C-alpha cells in the first residue's frame, strides 16, 4: 500500500535504548515518525501480555530495545526479555500475525545512530509486511461506525 504508515511501538529501556534515542535526537539524526516510544525501567519488565496488548490495540509492529547483552543495568533484565520476546513471536503467529512484526534489539546509550538505524529498518520491514491483519477489520469497523 502506497500510503500505509505503520504504527510501531518501541519498548525502550531507560538506561540504554532510551538514552540512545535521546542521543539520536541531540545528534539531529532522522528516523521515521512512526515509532512510538514507551520507556521502561528495564526490558526485564516486558512480559508477553504487554506485547500482545500493543498488537491488540492496533500496532502494526512492536520491538523491544534493551542494553547490550552482558551490560544490562539490572544485570539479567535483557536476558530474561529475550526468551519472552521469542515466545510471544509464537503467540502472535498462532493468532495469524507474522512473527516478524515483533523483534528484540540491543544497543548501548552511546549508539544514537544505531537507534535511528533500527527505527528505519524496522519501519521498512513493517511497511513491506503491510498493515496488521487486525487493523484491516478494525478500520473497516471504524469506517462503519463513522
Amino acid at each position: 500500500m502506497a500510503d500505509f504508515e505503520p504504527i510501531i511501538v518501541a519498548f525502550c529501556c531507560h538506561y540504554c535504548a532510551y538514552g540512545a534515542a535521546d542521543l539520536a535526537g541531540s545528534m539531529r539524526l532522522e528516523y521515521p515518525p512512526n515509532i512510538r516510544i514507551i520507556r521502561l525501567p528495564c526490558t526485564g519488565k516486558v512480559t508477553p501480555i504487554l506485547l500482545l496488548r500493543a498488537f491488540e490495540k492496533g500496532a502494526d509492529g512492536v520491538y523491544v530495545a534493551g542494553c547490550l547483552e552482558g551490560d544490562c543495568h539490572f544485570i539479567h533484565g535483557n536476558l530474561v526479555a529475550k526468551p519472552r520476546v521469542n515466545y510471544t513471536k509464537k503467540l502472535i503467529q498462532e493468532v495469524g500475525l507474522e512473527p516478524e512484526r515483533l523483534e528484540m534489539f540491543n544497543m548501548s546509550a552511546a549508539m544514537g545512530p544505531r537507534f535511528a538505524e533500527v527505527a528505519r529498518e524496522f519501519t521498512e520491514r513493517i511497511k513491506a509486511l503491510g498493515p496488521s491483519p487486525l487493523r484491516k477489520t478494525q478500520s473497516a469497523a471504524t469506517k462503519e461506525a463513522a
Partner: protein
Amino acid sequence: MVIGERKPFEEIVKMLNGHKKILVLGCGGCVTVCLTGGDDAVKVLSSQLRMSREKDNDPLEITEKTIERQCDPEYVEQISDIVGQIDGVLSLACGVGVQYVAERYPTMPVYPALNTTFVGGSKKEGYYVERCQTCGDCKLYYTAGICPVARCSKSLLNGPCGGSTNGKCEIDPQVDCAWQLIIDRLKSLNLMDRYEQIIEANDWRSSRDGGPRTMIREDFQR
C-alpha cells in the same frame, strides 16, 4: 503439583465456534505454579482469542477471572453471578477444575484450555518433570526415594531391564534410567542388600486400574 499444558491454539479456537460471550477462568492452584493456567495465562490467552476472532470478523467478548482453585465447590460458587451473562466457560484449570465447573453449572458449556499431563514437580522455574503415578501403594521405602512406577518407562519393580545404557532409558537418551538412579542411591545409603529382595507382583487395585478412587476423612463428616 498437577501439570498441564495449553492445548494447541487452533483446537481452542475450534471449541469456541459459535460462542459470542465467554468467561476465561483461571485457577490459582497448581497451574499457576507451572505457569500455564493462572492469571497471566488467562490474560495472554484472552488477548490472543480476541485478536484471532477480530481477524475473522467474528468478535468474541471475554470476561477474565481467576479464582483461588477450581477443585473446591466454594470457589467455583464465586462465578455464579457471571454465569448468567455468558454463553460458555473456557477453563484453564486441570481436568479436575474443568469438571467441577461443568458439574456446578450443568447448563453451561465448559471447555478445557489445557491438556492435563502429569503429577510432578519443578526442577527449576519453567521446567517440570513427572514423579508420581498415583499408584496408591507407595514403594519409595524399597527404592530409596525414587519411584520405579513413575520414573521407569516400564514401571519395573525389579529393574533394570536390558535396555539401560549409560544411566539412560532405552526410549530416550534424555530420560534417566530410574533403576540406575535407585541403585546409585541404594549404594550411597549402604542398602544394596535391599536390591536383591524380590518385590512381588503389584496389587494394582489401589491405582486407577481398580476404578475411580475416593478418599474420605471420617472426622470431617457431619
